[in-house]
């Protein structure tokens, strides 16, 4: 302490305090800010399933075990009348008209099966295997879906990347990965009107999901999830099926070509190289930049104030 006592009246002590405070803010923010490098849940890239590979009976078994407790055995959901005589969902909503795209989206992003029907589900690794999902969707299409209502899975939009664990040997995995990357690049680079994609995203999506895709708050504690980890197919499925509180954007409202522009914009934006440094702020947006601006700016103003009002002595 003597060391401090001896130097705290030094003319430069004020600046040192300001610089230390700045450094503390900067390092503290960098340490507390969430990292974006969380591992992606990656599963096998799904093609249109070959009918011979599909086991509808297995799909029924999975549905009855994991879905029916909330959505009912015929997929009609569970409803009760409230005080005003309106039907409200008690456990799970009616699935008969939502379409297979909704099913694929909810299950492949791990949101279904849900542990708690009253709360919004976060993105998680998928709970069942890829083959089980194919069987489940086949059972849904055959037995539960009414007149083919709702949107189909967009099989021509690239989904998840293949995962090494699903392949018997390295060579076949590498071949599958290369094929997937080819399809992915073709889809992303197939879009040629960045301006349209940007406008569609900014005017219809960015209010909730934020301009960078980081997500944001809604009413009553709901939130719009971040979409950095979403595959093009998941984004497409979310648009046509409207999961949770999200409105729907069918192929009539935003055509498949326009959706490709939009998805390409989102994925290209996220692939932009990060300039790095401790003040890259995870690219969360203007609010964080404003915060830093205030901190740095105010510190400089305080430094100026210290200089202006510093007392002068005879030996100065």
């Amino acid at each position: 302490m003597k060391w401090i006592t001896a130097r705290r009246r030094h003319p430069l002590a004020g600046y040192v305090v300001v610089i230390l405070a700045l450094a503390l803010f900067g390092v503290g923010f960098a340490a507390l800010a969430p990292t974006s490098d969380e591992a992606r849940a990656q599963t096998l890239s799904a093609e249109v399933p070959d009918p011979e590979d599909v086991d509808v009976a297995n799909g029924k078994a999975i549905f009855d075990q994991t879905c029916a407790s909330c959505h009912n055995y015929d997929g009609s959901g569970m409803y009760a009348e409230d005080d005003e005589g309106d039907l409200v969902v008690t456990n799970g909503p009616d699935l008969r008209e939502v379409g297979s795209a909704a099913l694929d989206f909810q299950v492949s992003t791990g949101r279904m099966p849900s542990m708690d029907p009253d709360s919004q589900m976060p993105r998680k690794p998928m709970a069942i295997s890829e083959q089980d999902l194919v069987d489940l969707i086949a059972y849904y299409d055959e037995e539960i879906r009414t007149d083919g209502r709702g949107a189909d899975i967009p099989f021509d939009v690239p989904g998840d990347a293949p995962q090494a664990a699903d392949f018997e040997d390295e060579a076949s995995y590498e071949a599958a990965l290369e094929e997937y990357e080819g399809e992915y690049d073709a889809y992303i680079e197939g879009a040629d009107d960045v301006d349209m994609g940007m406008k569609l995203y900014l005017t219809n999506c960015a209010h909730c999901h934020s301009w960078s895709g980081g997500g944001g708050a809604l009413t009553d504690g709901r939130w719009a999830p971040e979409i950095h980890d979403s595959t093009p197919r998941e984004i497409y499925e979310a648009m046509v099926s409207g999961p949770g509180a999200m409105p729907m954007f069918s192929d009539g409202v935003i055509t498949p070509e326009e959706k490709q522009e939009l998805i390409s914009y989102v994925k290209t934006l996220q692939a932009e190289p990060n300039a790095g440094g401790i003040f890259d702020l995870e690219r969360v947006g203007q609010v964080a930049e404003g915060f830093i601006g205030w901190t740095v700016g105010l510190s400089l103003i305080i430094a100026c104030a210290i200089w202006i009002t510093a007392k002068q002595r005879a030996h100065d």
Partner: protein
Amino acid sequence: MTENNNNDHNEAGADADERVVGTPTDNTDVVSESSAHSESEHNGPYLASETHKHSEEKQRRGEKLASVWFIIAFIGGIGFLVSYFLFPPNAAGEPAIADPQIGQYSNMLLGGTLTLAMFGIGAGMTVWARNVMPHYEVGSPYDDLPSKEEEKSSFSEFFMKSADESGFTKRPLMRRTLILAMLPLGLAPVVLLRDTGPLPGDLMKKTRWTDGMRMYVEGTHRYLRAEDLEADPYGMISALPALDDEGYPHGISLTDQAKSVILLIKMPEDDWKAGMDEPVREDSDETHLNWTHQGIVAYSKICTHVGCPAALYERTTHRILCPCHQSTFDAADAAKVVFGPAHRPLPQLPIGVDDEGYLVARGDFNEPTGPTFWEYAKD
């Protein structure tokens, strides 16, 4: 100010010729050389021996440095005025700064020169205080109001003494350059009044929507049809009037976009609430429900609070949330405010289809769009 009792008797006297504007009179008792250095007369934290009057040489250097700053400030102030007029409107009366690149240059110049002017004055004054003014502690305890006569006169004495000691009276170069630096800044707000322009008339109450006008999905140039929303029982999309104004890359100016952008929302028709059966205006026969088409309703996307785009639409609750101040509107209930600082519903646009099945407006909004202003309800 307190100069009165010092100079009211010699305003027209012989001394008046030598007075410089903004300085005290000459016959005021100058006390600068008198007591500041006596050990016994002040009780600040520093001994009197540690306080001092700067050497004449240092004061002269300080004066020059301060003057340089004031001249820089003057140049900045003049530069502000110049840069304001640097980008005149073109022959058609359109402002040159409407071009974003020019606008950026203009902003940089205005901000930069104003910064220079204000910083120059601040820096010059700091140099003045540190290099020209003497330094010592003065205690001034607070007393009851109003001050006694002798206190007033002692204050004015002190004031004049300080004015003198500060070098303000003795350093004409610094004083004049300071006054020079202040001049353009004083003029600047008056000059800026030029921007208030003519009154807006009914411009704020009308948009470009007219009866029969089709609509684009915002960002595309594709007319929207009612059947495009058939596959969305709970759809939503931003749309713009299908204008094709020459000269704008997307057919419509940003000003018109900001006023006329709409949010088309589709919901099952049994979700409508009682508010939809109310008339759209007090004097109107039409209800909000008459202004919808097959479950599709069109509201202004601009929040009636301060004009942010309110478009966080939750299809489950039919709430439209504005991200800026959490104003919340119920899309199923004529966009009435259910929460937040907005105090009137989002204006509704009457819609229908033309004979080719395209969605069209059937007129303008029922109320002025955008942030609420004083006269919004008056005709």
